[in-house]
């Protein structure tokens, strides 16, 4: 729970949706007077309900001197509220037979519970307590500071290759807030006062900065009444919510560097700057990544893992972000393979996508796989609740859950080739070699 690295997955999930013969998701939406946007999707097939709140606050909304707050709140928000005892969120949900989770990205924070549908009000109560008067006090802050430090040690410092996002983004961005990691600076968290945290809560965890998305076995009218009951009394913020408007200039030349880490096998990271999610070119870049690494018959896997055996693992993942993001290629060398050898083998595959139009057959396979993934993705209420909230928050159109596929299907083979030529070029990338620490002191 509470992994900021879920960013990676978040981005993959956002990029997946599309479907040709998908059954239409019939949902309804409305705004409460306090600005809370509500999306309801009724699905009576299973007596469960997913209750979620997405807050439009991620690390990019933070003060550069106080980074890590959005993620820190993901922890604090489990500390309790005026009416919920410290640490009791988990218990309420589990005793009701449900489960819960939360995650933070550069752009937003997401909390959800999946409960038996007769416990809808419990979910609404828990989430409204969190939005209305979460417990932000010195004791909780102290506790969670230690937990977050542990998390940083465990997930980044002590995790082989755990720092790739951080190391990549700080070189890929120089002015945009994506340059600092979601988990933020431990020094900033340490230096921050209780009043800083209270202010951040007041600024961002407000109904006019959130989407309440509910999917599952609900009676729409009854659900609306309960939502009114629990959320209508929460005041909206007095000030407009802060949104950074920073445009990162192009890289203008490859940035290369070496990172020494607690690893055994060297690795190569290539991060290409790509357009924001939802743009036409983004879809083409996303298709390129699928050619390269979707499944064991994909090009990078087949060539580098199966045939040449240069890589133990290799893959390419575009990060769908609100502002222009990156598409990340990551490869771990097989034992005894030089990191440069792997890098040029990866480059070879990219050059191939640039120089040769993909075959009709591979194109069809790509579209088939995309479609299949999408359909499966919308089979669970929790997935539907999240997709609806995401589409509304970042695209202003929750109905994209039904028709984003058209944007993928509009991408031609030529578009794919053009996107590879335009974005997957050296001058537009950061390349990092990850090497074992033991090699750091060689002179």
């Amino acid at each position, binding site marked *: *729970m509470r992994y900021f690295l879920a960013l990676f997955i978040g981005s993959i999930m956002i990029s997946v949706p599309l479907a040709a013969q998908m059954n239409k998701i019939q949902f309804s939406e409305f705004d409460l007077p306090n600005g809370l946007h509500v999306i309801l999707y009724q699905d009576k097939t299973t007596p469960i309900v997913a209750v979620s709140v997405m807050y439009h606050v991620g690390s990019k909304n933070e003060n550069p001197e106080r980074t890590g707050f959005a993620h820190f709140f993901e922890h604090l928000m489990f500390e309790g509220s005026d009416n919920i005892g*410290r640490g009791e969120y988990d218990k309420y949900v589990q005793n009701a*037979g449900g489960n819960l989770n939360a995650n933070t990205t550069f752009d937003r924070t997401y909390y959800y519970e999946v409960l038996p549908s007769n416990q809808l009000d419990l979910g609404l109560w828990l989430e409204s307590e969190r939005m209305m008067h979460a417990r932000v006090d010195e004791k909780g802050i102290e506790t969670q500071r230690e937990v977050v430090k542990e998390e940083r040690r465990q997930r980044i410092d002590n995790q082989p290759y755990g720092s790739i996002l951080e190391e990549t983004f700080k070189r890929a961005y120089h002015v945009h807030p994506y340059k600092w990691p979601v988990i933020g600076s431990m020094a900033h968290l340490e230096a921050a006062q209780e009043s800083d945290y209270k202010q951040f809560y007041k600024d961002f965890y407000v109904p006019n900065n959130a989407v309440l998305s509910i999917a599952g076995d609900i009676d729409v009218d009854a659900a609306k009444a309960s939502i009114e009951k629990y959320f209508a009394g929460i005041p909206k913020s007095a000030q407009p919510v802060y949104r950074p408007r920073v445009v990162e200039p192009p890289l203008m030349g490859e940035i290369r560097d070496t990172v020494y880490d607690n690893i055994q096998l060297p690795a190569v990271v290539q991060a290409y700057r790509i357009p924001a999610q939802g743009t036409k070119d983004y879809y083409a870049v996303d298709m390129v990544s699928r050619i390269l690494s979707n499944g064991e018959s994909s090009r990078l896997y087949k060539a580098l893992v199966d045939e040449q055996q240069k890589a133990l693992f290799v893959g390419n993942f575009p990060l769908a972000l609100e502002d222009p993001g990156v598409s990340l290629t990551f490869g771990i060398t097989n034992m005894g393979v030089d990191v440069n050898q792997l890098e040029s083998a990866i480059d070879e595959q990219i050059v191939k996508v640039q120089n040769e139009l993909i075959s009709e057959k591979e194109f069809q396979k790509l579209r088939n796989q995309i479609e299949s993934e999408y*359909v*499966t993705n919308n089979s669970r209420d929790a997935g539907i609740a999240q997709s609806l909230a995401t589409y509304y928050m970042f695209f202003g159109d929750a109905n994209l859950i039904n028709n984003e596929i058209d944007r993928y299907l509009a991408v031609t083979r030529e578009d794919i080739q053009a996107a590879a030529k335009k974005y997957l070029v050296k001058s537009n990338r950061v390349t990092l070699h990850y090497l074992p620490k*033991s090699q750091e002191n060689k002179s």
Partner: protein
Amino acid sequence: MNYIKSFILLAVLGIASCSPKMAKETSSNDNNASKDFRAMAPKAGPAREIEIGKSTQYTLANGLKVIVVENHKIPEISYQLTIDMDRMQEKEKAGLSDITGTLLSTGTTSKTKSDIDEAVDFIGASMVTNPKGGFASSLTKHSDKILSLFSDVILRPSFPEAEFDKIKTQTLSGLQANKDDPNAISGNVSSALNFGPNHPYGEITNEITVANIKLQDTKDYYKTYFKPGNAYLVIVGDITPDVAKAKAEKYFGSWAAGKTPTYTYPFPKTLDNTAVAFVDKSGAVQSVINVTYPVDIKPGSPDEIPARVMNTVLGSGFAGRLFKNLREDKAYTYGAYSSLNSDELVGSFSASASVRNEVTDSAIVQVLIELNKLKDQPVTTKELELAKSFIYGAFARSLENPQTVANFALNTLMYNLPPDYYQTYLQRLSAVTIDDVARMAKKYITPNKARIVVVGNKDDVYSKLSVFDKEDGKVQLYDIYANPRKDESSTPLSVTANEVVDKYLMAIGGRAKLDAVSSLDQTYSMELMGMAITAHMVQSSGKFHMSMTAPGMSLMKQIYDGDKGQMEQMGQKSTVEGTDLTSMKEQAIIFPERFYGEAGYTLELKGIEDVNGKPAYKIAVTTPGGSKSTEFFDKESFLKVKEVQTAEGQGQTVTNEYGDYKAVDGINIPYTVTISGPMPTPMVMKAETVKVNSNVDPSLFKI
């Protein structure tokens, strides 16, 4: 390989989901006097009767029963084939059914494995086969393609020899990994003892049974059991019953009629009194304890739901009594759980935990206390309600997966359940009373007839366990495959440690010959992650060289030149100092056992213990440099068969097993060394060349 891949994926993607931890601290709102609706958690609404989707059933002319669960939520259709065969005893070929199941989808009369993979990938579908059939799913529009592939692998498998060999090798690697896994050992030994050798559930797959399996056996298995007469094809998803029937007819109608053989087995004998079974795992720092016995509870029996409530109170998740007692209260373990499984032939009860060596007996005491308490005292209303909502939630959430619905339909038919069995499951759940739970506990919780299976470190744990054995007050020893072993440690030994070592030296050639060896040059080959690796080890006049190479590259090199030590990894050199240097120096000694009798060495004969089914003398050795190891010498041949080293401070143990001794210039050298511990699966090193007193290139020792 897959293990490493998924590990890396997890590391990179950071998606390892982790269950929410229990809050250690709670606070109460009892003094919040507000009548505000917010002050208290809202009450749950009435539980809704769940609609599990109607199923339609047909029987084809060849006897295949088709179950269709129509569900148009998403445009996807899945096909699950289950052959409801009576379990046969595989005996000396245990493992046959699993291997056959995997083999089916690796080739048909018209397609190779890569044809099949490519075809499945192309339509973004999935397909697997197993000993009782298989599963395939795809989007509605590709349904004919996947069904055609699926019927091809089920009806026309080609049993390719190369794939058969590959699967056997993978099975053997899996068994190797399990040999070190105390939970796998506990599971195997518990089933073998609970169900006995004359029951299919009591069989254990091991290296010998896998080696016994021939390609022809898989063909025979297929011929005997892949018959439509006992088979169910469950079709779930975006399809109407009529279309489903037509498809079943088209793709499985040609399957030749026939039924699988029937077998019956007597209910396993239960114990009259509690007995303790022990499996030794040298060097273990934890014991896996399992209080277990067979139970007679059939799927769909009236007892099933109240018994599940009873078991939930005892040991489901972190709300269970076992977890609360052994983890939260005593901190003996990270987790303690119980299970009560229903089964048509014979079910089982199990209460288990992994606990620190020194609290093994205390933990067993607490498990028994909890079992007796449940048997003798009623549960509280709060516990009852909590268990019910836990089951309710899990049941409800599981329904989101259409496969759950499919399984319900299938179970209803296979176990002859009432048609509304699952529809009314939750009503019957909510009707369970405290008295029902008490009745179930009296019937199914029988600690005084349980088997207590402990897998652990014999030196630390064994002697404290006899108090729990009410049969004869003795703990019975077993090997990892549940063969009884005599406890020879209690009988006084007529030899001393030094005598055993002397006999070992005699067995490998005698002191005179060994003393005449001034150099030993050994080359071993092994395979690591698909790469052929060569290890070269040379000892000569107090110097030591070891290198590991893969084709065209050096992986690792260690040199001790009689004074200094050096380590080279992937081209990076470093100087070896301190205790590492001391142990390197000790590695330079040829046949160090020659000096075990001298000052500085401490030997302690710990008794007799089995190594791969044969008794061996177990000797704890401490070198003058302080390195500790436990060495095992075969009781008959006195050859060294095993050596266990524990790295100080790291708790990591490395086990070397020696076998396949061959004479080289009159000296017996092990040609097979199996190393386990640091890697996920053990590594087998085979000697390629062994040279005694050959001309050694002095540059090998150059730093």
